[in-house]
């Protein structure tokens, strides 16, 4: 059973991608395939997390070669919840793109690539092998390249050049780091690495972990290596940028969290003080970047960076509470950021622009959209009881507990500036009357409106649910954090070969409820 379940999050999207690619000539067929794949994904993800919650950590060894000899997929609470969130985002994006990109010539290829990207993301979440992680990172990267250049115009090509050039640097360094790590330890399995890395001299460990930190920091768009993100994201179609914003940088953060708990110990690696500084500056530079922008997508792009800062802050503080906060933040941010980009895209579709100077009047024209915007926007800004508050609360509490006052103050100031940015979008795009020279908004058919609004509304509902059902998600994040900081059960399960239960059963309805 587990053998089936664990591989399906990769198998289904890859199969769907292939099937979509084969149905180039029939748009509706590829839509149907894409939907089916996305829904199947979600079902599998729900099944997976339920299994993990009730039976504990699950491992499958591909080719029946036990770790550390073969490649294993490991579903613990963290990875399975990440897979679930990814599946949710997948459905939302697929639905949204059916409306948004239907007219584009690259429609079928687009769906194919979306599913490949999902496969890459979920593979990165599930794999227990560091080289396999590299492979899935590459699947993700090359797919993101492909999506980036679909039907690209001048600016998009320029954006793609920057994205590609800077991301390739990260990829190279990641690969080098794996090579050195293998040379030093002789193994690639993350659980196996845990013990072997501990035997390395401190300086060797610092050397190798520094390369990992650098490579993943680029992926996560941390200060000072985030330039690729604001240089490129705002030229992408909204559905694509929503997908990227939700998942790609988060995979970087996830990898950082995984690698710096299970493989290296952040404290032992010697990079904790640096990471604290990085986290603070990432928050700050990101939010200040956003404050200077007038393009919705660009504001949101800079906010990805500042929010990544909060997640890094959680990791940098390195207490159970802090990592719980980081995980909570990731879960929240994936949903909320995707939604904001989708709304931005809808505004662009209606008004033909996503520049705040050219927008306006959306409050009067589409009050329901205004409401739907308020939820993710104020969640991102950290208004309780919306989801964003709790993540912030947790990391700030953790930073106060560890007496990182400056970091806490930075986090609070960044929270204020986030409020500023969100209200800026609200005031300019929604409240402000439509500028006189602006064209009349496009009228969309009822069906199109539905396709746009359904994913937006669904994600908003999830945002609210996360905000109110904090306890189960907190439990989930806390258990994950505990397992990360005390990885022995994970290691035993992976190297022992049998799936063993080490997680306290959670109330399953809370998490499953969050997914509908």
């Amino acid at each position, binding site marked *: 059973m587990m053998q089936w379940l664990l591989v399906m999050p990769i198998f289904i999207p890859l199969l769907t991608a292939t099937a979509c690619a084969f149905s180039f000539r029939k748009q509706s067929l590829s839509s149907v395939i894409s939907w089916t794949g996305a829904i199947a994904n979600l079902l599998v993800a729900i099944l997976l997390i339920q299994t993990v919650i009730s039976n504990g950590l699950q491992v499958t060894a591909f080719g029946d070669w036990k770790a550390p000899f073969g490649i294993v997929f490991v579903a613990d609470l963290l990875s399975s919840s990440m897979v679930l969130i990814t599946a949710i985002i997948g459905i939302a994006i697929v639905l949204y793109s059916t409306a948004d990109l239907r007219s584009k010539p690259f429609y079928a290829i687009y769906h194919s690539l979306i599913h490949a990207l999902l496969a890459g993301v979920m593979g990165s979440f599930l794999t227990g092998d560091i080289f396999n992680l590299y492979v899935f990172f590459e699947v993700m990267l090359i797919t993101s390249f492909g999506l980036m250049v679909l039907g690209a115009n001048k600016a998009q090509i*320029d954006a793609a050049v920057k994205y590609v050039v800077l991301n390739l640097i990260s990829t*190279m360094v990641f690969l080098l780091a794996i090579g050195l790590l293998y040379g030093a330890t002789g193994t690639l399995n993350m659980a196996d690495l845990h013990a072997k890395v501990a035997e390395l001299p401190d300086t060797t460990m610092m050397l190798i972990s520094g390369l990992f930190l650098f490579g993943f920091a680029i992926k996560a768009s941390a200060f000072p290596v985030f330039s690729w993100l604001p240089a490129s994201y705002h030229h992408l179609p909204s559905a694509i940028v929503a997908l990227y914003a939700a998942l790609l940088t988060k995979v970087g953060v996830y990898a950082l969290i995984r690698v710096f708990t299970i493989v290296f110990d952040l404290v032992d690696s010697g990079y904790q003080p640096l990471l604290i500084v990085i986290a603070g500056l990432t928050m700050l530079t990101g939010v200040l970047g956003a404050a200077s922008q007038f393009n919705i997508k660009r504001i949101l792009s800079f906010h990805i960076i500042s929010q990544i800062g909060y997640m890094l802050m959680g990791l940098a503080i390195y207490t159970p509470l802090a990592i719980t906060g980081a995980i909570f933040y990731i879960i929240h941010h994936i949903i909320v950021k995707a939604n904001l980009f989708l709304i931005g895209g809808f505004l662009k579709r209606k008004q033909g622009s996503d520049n705040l100077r050219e927008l306006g009047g959306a409050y009067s024209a589409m009050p329901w959209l205004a409401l739907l915007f308020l939820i993710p926007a104020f969640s991102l800004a950290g208004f309780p009881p919306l989801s964003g508050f709790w993540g912030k609360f947790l990391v700030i509490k953790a930073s106060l507990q560890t007496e990182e006052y400056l970091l806490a103050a930075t986090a609070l100031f960044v929270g204020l500036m986030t409020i500023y940015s969100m209200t800026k979008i609200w005031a300019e795009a929604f409240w402000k009357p439509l500028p006189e020279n602006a064209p009349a908004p496009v009228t969309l058919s009822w069906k199109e409106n539905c396709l746009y609004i359904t994913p937006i509304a669904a994600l908003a509902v999830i945002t609210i649910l996360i905000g109110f059902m904090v306890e189960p998600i907190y439990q989930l994040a806390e258990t994950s954090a505990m397992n990360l900081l005390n990885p022995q059960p994970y290691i035993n399960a992976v190297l022992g070969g049998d799936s063993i239960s080490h997680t306290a059963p959670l109330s399953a309805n809370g998490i499953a409820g969050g997914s509908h």
Partner: protein
Amino acid sequence: MEFLWCLVVGLMTACGVFLMLERHIVRFLFGMILVSNAINLAIFVAGRLTRGNPPLIASDALLPAAGYANPLPQALILTAIVIGFGLLLFTLLLAYRAIKELGTADMDKMQHAETEQ
């Protein structure tokens, strides 16, 4: 003998990095190719070097001859080479398209993405 190849890896990387910093996009690509080669070599060296004894098992044996080369880094490099090929191929054509579309091969003149429209 690893020392020599450590040196070569470093020098190749240095050349590659230098090229990656140049303004001509095709030179960047050449730099990438160099660095990518150097890193493959680095993985190879990191897996330790063995002269003239490939990890093959003779048709009448069950084990490779003693002192066989470490097969795992070879498999990793194979994967890395092929992935690198995919990435470089894409980058090459992106460079082509960028030159066609933007009218310049100068990466510092590619300023369409970050200027406010």
